[in-house]
């Protein structure tokens, strides 16, 4: 086991773990953000440079600091490594720069975009970005296109993280889309406008950190924060069937997979669950989904009884416990 210190917090991890994974093991504020890295997709990471950290001491044997900031998602830890993330001004400065670069070609159309409210780039820009843009040239624009009947691709918003192509590569047998061209002009495209109709292709919507790939069945239907998320499941022959329903009253507006703290899907779900099961009768509701209270989705969303009711000796806490018992 290797000992690593991240922002002064020590932990022990297996050899071969990346710095980012080690930081996630500690958790909390000091986990570097990640736009392209996805722990469930092989080969992801190293592209967006948002997770840059400073290695203050390389290892116990060679405690010299690494000369440049490193991408924490692809750099494996070494024994006795000392990493600085939020404690280093250099890292914060670099991250601010990276966010500015990511936003060069990203349109400021959050009011239109369906991803707004659960967009990683929005969060990142809010935390690390500057208030205005210094970019004067025109942004590149594309027309939104349908790839398959259910997925809308709006290349204008793409930050080229390659996650969706990895989904196509690793989850579906026949890959029909990828990145065309190179450098600044590169874009996601399908093989001569081929539609994507693999059973797991819908996961690229959840995997997309921005609003480049969005659900066509949910397009402009509601803002994310006006829908109420519920954990639900169903018997599905192809996938686990564990999903989050985004409801408006009794109407299911959208079905997505369950995302963890870092915005990664816990389990990939199939297209049937995602796009075709939109009746309440199709699902077994488990209860309201826990949403970070700092998230805009948490507005008017109550996932637990008020904490004060749960104090011991409180009559209503007994009642709550009893209802829970009955439910279980």
């Amino acid at each position, binding site marked *: 086991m290797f000992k690593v210190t991240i922002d002064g917090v020590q932990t022990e991890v297996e050899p071969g773990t990346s710095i980012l994974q080690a930081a996630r093991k500690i958790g909390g504020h000091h986990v570097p953000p990640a736009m392209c890295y996805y722990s469930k997709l092989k080969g992801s990471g190293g592209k967006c440079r948002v997770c840059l950290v400073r290695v203050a001491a390389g290892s116990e044997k060679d405690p010299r600091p690494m000369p440049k900031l490193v991408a924490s998602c692809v750099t494996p830890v070494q024994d006795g490594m000392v990493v600085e993330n939020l404690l280093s001004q250099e890292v914060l400065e670099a991250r601010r720069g990276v966010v500015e670069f990511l936003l060069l070609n990203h349109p400021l*159309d959050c009011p239109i975009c369906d991803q707004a409210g659960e967009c990683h780039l929005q969060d990142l820009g809010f935390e690390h970005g500057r208030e205005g843009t210094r970019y004067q040239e025109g942004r590149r624009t594309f027309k939104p296109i349908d790839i398959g009947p259910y997925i809308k691709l709006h290349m204008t918003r793409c930050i080229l993280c390659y996650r969706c192509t990895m989904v196509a590569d690793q989850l579906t047998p026949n890959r029909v889309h990828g990145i065309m061209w190179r450098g600044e002009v590169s874009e996601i495209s399908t093989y001569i406008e081929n539609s994507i109709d693999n059973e797991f292709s819908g996961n690229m919507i959840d995997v997309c950190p921005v609003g480049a790939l969005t659900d066509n069945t949910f397009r*402009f239907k509601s803002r994310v924060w006006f829908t109420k998320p519920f954990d639900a499941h169903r018997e599905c022959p192809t996938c686990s069937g564990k999903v989050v329903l985004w409801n408006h009253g009794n109407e299911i507006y959208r079905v997505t997979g369950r995302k963890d703290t870092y915005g990664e899907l816990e389990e990939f779900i199939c297209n049937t669950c995602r796009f075709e099961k939109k009746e309440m009768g199709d699902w077994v509701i488990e209860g309201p989904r826990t949403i970070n209270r700092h998230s805009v989705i948490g*507005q008017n969303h109550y996932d637990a009884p008020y904490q004060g009711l749960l104090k011991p000796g409180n009559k209503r806490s007994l009642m709550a416990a009893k209802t829970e018992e009955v439910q279980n």
Partner: protein
Amino acid sequence: MQLTNRSKKVDTHALQGMEKTYLPGILKGMAITFKHMFKKVPTIRYPEVKKPFSSVWRGVHILKRDENGAERCTACGLCALACPAEAITMEAAERKPNEVGLYREEKYAAKYEINMLRCIFCGLCEEACPKEAIFLSNSIASANYDRGTFIYGKDKLVEPVTPPSEHVNVFEEGYRKQWMKLKK
């Protein structure tokens, strides 16, 4: 406890002589009434005469159009989110290729309703709007006997397509100048 010097002792002495005829009291009262006939009237005859509003007055909402006459609102829902009275509801729709002149953005509000009975005219929607689409104008929501008429839809809220020089709302002086420039 005495707070001011303006308190007057109630005079309860028994009426004497002329006072018993009540005439001095009546004349005194009538003199006061007569004096008021020459005083300035503090009220106005409202529907015909209107008082000027303060420049920061928050009246009925207006959904603005841009310089080309396209609706600015993109149905982002931030006004509804900011609204403490939950008075605003909307439904979005996607703009069709032949509607480019009608709506500024790819998405627009197909339905936009403000419940004027719920609205507290706080102006938070105006502050939340990222597209400078909603403003609180300087007119009042008109009174009515029917509660249903207080739910203002797009027909009442969207700014009419007229040159801004004819607008009742003159709070956007710069906007008007810009229009005049465009006209030239």
